[in-house]
């Protein structure tokens, strides 16, 4: 049923349709609305049987999910940013144990400076944890991905993280076509664990594995992710065939066939990018967009195919590896592995800075003139940076940069003087 609904609410309702048996909640913006809505459904009895556990930390949230999943229950939780980092040890552990937990990550920057707004630093921080990471472009896709995520996770015994841009999607009220229960029930069979705590067939889960087998364990986890590269498009195809909606999959090419320049990005910025690309196409420029839906496993082959004809690739990233550069860009570079293609990285939208169509078009302008630097920071206030550098040069006790920058910028003055 198509409804005008907040993204968080749509995700929560979809998660409920997946009949999770244990949901653990710890509040952190901007994920909170999701877990609140699930909690309300459990409390009201509309989602049952389901245990909703208010835990004392994200670390506990993932740990509760681990325990529940290992006991054969479908387990779900959601988090963001610092919360993901606080549960990081358990995030790795869930993957290492092969527990098919599904978690919504409402993407948010990581402090310090503390910042509650959107970027992808949190997801990037756990990219090597062994979780499958799927990025949603819209709230429709965010909802649909959760159903696919449970199916994927449970078929492969690998946890899946559905990454949804915090605030931009989670707090946006948009039209979302919600699935109905009978469909979800048919698409997502009851969870049958590969291993579980069972008094009738006891096993020890979580052994200590030494050098003699650890590499094999890791390689097997890698192979499961490679299996996911097959399974993700399969599930998306099945979903498309039954719902008519093109959600999920590995990558999402848009007008790339004849594109000389392809912009690669993940998440909600893709919509804005498509508008920008349409505008440039109207001007006759050969530009396209490649959305990466599955960041882990990284679909190198699909990316390579989609970018095969591009002369220039611009990767727009909401995160970066400090001291190195783009994260997604690195994966792209490895995927295309030929040097004729120009690869440009644009870091954008950090800590919630709005990525405007105007700025994106400027990037395309620069790209079309081959004037885009290998690494660009979108809408960077170079002056503020220079002034802070100068302050740091001038005085040993220059103080905290974040606060200095805020002071430097001053309050935004109202245009109507009092």
């Amino acid at each position, binding site marked *: 049923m198509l409804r005008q609904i907040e993204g968080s609410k749509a995700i929560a309702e979809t998660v409920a349709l997946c009949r999770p048996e244990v949901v653990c909640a710890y509040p952190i913006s901007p994920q909170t609305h999701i877990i609140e809505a699930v909690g309300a459904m459990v409390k009201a009895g509309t989602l049952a049987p389901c245990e909703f556990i208010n835990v004392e930390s994200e670390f506990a949230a993932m740990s509760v999910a681990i325990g529940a999943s290992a006991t054969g229950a479908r387990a779900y939780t959601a988090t963001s940013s610092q919360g993901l980092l606080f549960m990081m040890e358990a995030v790795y552990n869930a993957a*290492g*144990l*092969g527990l098919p937990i599904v978690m919504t990550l409402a993407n948010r920057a990581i402090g310090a400076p503390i910042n509650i707004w959107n970027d992808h630093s949190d997801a990037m921080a756990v990219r090597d944890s062994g979780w499958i990471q799927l990025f949603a472009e819209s709230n429709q896709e965010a909802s649909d991905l959760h159903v696919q995520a449970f199916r994927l996770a449970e078929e492969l*015994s690998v946890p899946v993280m559905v990454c949804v841009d915090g605030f931009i999607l989670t707090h946006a009220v948009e039209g979302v076509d919600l699935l109905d229960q009978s469909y979800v029930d048919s698409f997502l069979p009851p969870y049958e664990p*590969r*291993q579980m705590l069972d008094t009738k*067939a*006891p*096993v*020890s*889960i*979580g*052994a200590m*594995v030494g050098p003699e*087998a*650890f590499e*094999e*364990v890791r390689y*097997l986890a890698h192979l499961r992710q490679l299996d996911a590269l097959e399974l993700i498009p399969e599930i998306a195809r099945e979903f498309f065939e039954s719902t008519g909606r093109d959600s999920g999959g590995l990558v999402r090419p848009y007008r790339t066939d004849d594109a000389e320049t392809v912009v690669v990005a993940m998440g909600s910025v893709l919509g804005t990018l498509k508008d920008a690309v349409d505008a440039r196409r109207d001007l006759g420029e050969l530009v396209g967009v490649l959305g990466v839906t599955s960041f882990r496993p990284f679909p190198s082959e699909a990316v390579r195919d989609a970018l095969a004809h591009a002369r220039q690739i611009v990767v727009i990233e909401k995160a970066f590896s400090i001291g190195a550069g783009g994260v997604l860009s690195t994966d792209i570079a490895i995927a295309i592995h030929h040097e004729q293609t120009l690869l440009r990285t644009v870091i954008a939208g950090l800590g919630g800075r709005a990525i405007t169509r105007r700025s994106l078009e400027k990037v395309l302008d620069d790209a079309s003139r081959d004037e885009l630097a290998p690494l660009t920071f979108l809408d960077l206030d170079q002056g503020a940076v220079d002034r802070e550098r100068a302050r740091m040069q001038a005085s040993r006790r220059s103080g905290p940069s974040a606060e200095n920058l805020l002071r430097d910028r001053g309050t935004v003055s109202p245009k109507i003087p009092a």
Partner: protein
Amino acid sequence: MTNPFAITLDVGSSRANHTGSWRVERPVYVDRLPPCNDACPAGENIQGWLYEAESGNYEAAWHMLVEDNPLPAIMGRVCFHPCETACNRVQVDEAVGINAVERFLGDLAVEKGWALPEPGPDTGKRILVVGAGPAGLSATYHLRRLGHHVRLVDSAPRLGGMLRYGIPAYRLPRAVLDAEIARIVAMGVEIQLEHVVHDVEQERRDGMFDAVFLAVGAQLGKRVDIPAGDSSRVIDAVSFLHQVADDDAPLLGRRVVVYGGGDTAFDAARTARRLGATDAVIVYRRNRERMGASGEELEQALGEGVTVRWLSTVSKFDGDRIMLEKMKLNEEGFPEPTGEFEQLDADSLVLALGQDTDLSLLEHANDVNVRDGAVEVLDSMMASPSGIFAGGDAVPAQRTATVAIGHGKRAAHGIDDFVMGRSAEAKVRHELASFELLNTWYYADAPRTERPELERVRRQTNFEEVIGGLTQDNALFEARRCMSCGNCFECDNCFGVCPDNAVIKLGENMRYQFDYDFCKGCGICVKECPCGAIVMVPEHN
């Protein structure tokens, strides 16, 4: 279910890891000699029969008891129980009341009519046992069990020897004595009473005996030279008690003085009280600490109105008065005269100064050595290689019924070896289970149960038994105070405390076994074994 590789493992797989290889020492189960058994002159397996009694298996306990001693009801009364002195439990609270349990079992057996073991298959060997006291009865019993024919001869008209003629009925009721003797007689014994053996060699030849056991006792009361106006009022304690036992008690008058400090002196004084003496005074030349009789006996006698004059000797008896000389102990603890005298009114004087053995029957037995009035014997109680054995009061040893019973047993086995032409097997004696080897923390705190004593007034006027028996509950309780020193009693501690589950429980009465595949040799089982029945021994390559 196929488990995820390496992360998930099947139960019990660690049993492939034999941690026994870590061990440099291994625990081994042992049996040690409990101090009670060690101390028992009759060689009883006390810890063994207490183990049965603990479980309420009284008949089994009794059967184990009579393996060594056929007279438990008697010994449960008259034994001076060195086992209790040796008992390790003394160092925890109080000794286990072994003697009381023994009596309980003995009485129960009489009451239930439990029979002694059947005699062994007839060997055709004939044994002469001279003397039907505890040594003779014990030897007779064991010889019958070994299948030998026994002729038991005694000069007295009834069986029992000193048990009957030396121990007053208030300590050993005659019914008990008769019942236990009857059980031995019932094994098929040729009995010849009121028969004095004058020449043992002649007796042996006449009866064609393959061996002889001399258990003639020490029936002659020692006399000392005391100037006495009327010697008819001086009697030795042995004769006195014998006459009382024959219901022919001499008239001693109201004031009786008993001279001596051993059990016999007390028996005599207490008997005199019962015969109507208003004053029964024991005169003893040493002090209380050096007295031969047990403290128990002293207490009972005092309780019955017997008085004691310590550090005194009788120097003269003139008919109604005794002159006492006060003594003092020198540095070596020997009494020395002080030259101080006092008088004591007395109607009679009973001498309880020890007994001698009449060994005139050995005059023609040339290869028997007699020294200081006692027959010299080997460990097997053999006195002569020709097949004469001796025991009880006739040989140099403590003169107690329990020792005599032990002699009887040992002699029976010595005789058996002799007549069957075997050389004696050396018995392996286990290492003593000393207190330090125990972990007494585990034993429940439980004080000893006292046997009821007959009220004092009743004790002064009749020959009813002074010490009562234990009830069944009390006996069970008392038996359970046994710490089973040195011998596994299946408390499951080793089985439980092993961090490596390396102890296998074999089931009731089958104890345990170590699983050396997994035992790491930590030694906790040794340390936590309550009774010290495990030792660590070094691993050998």
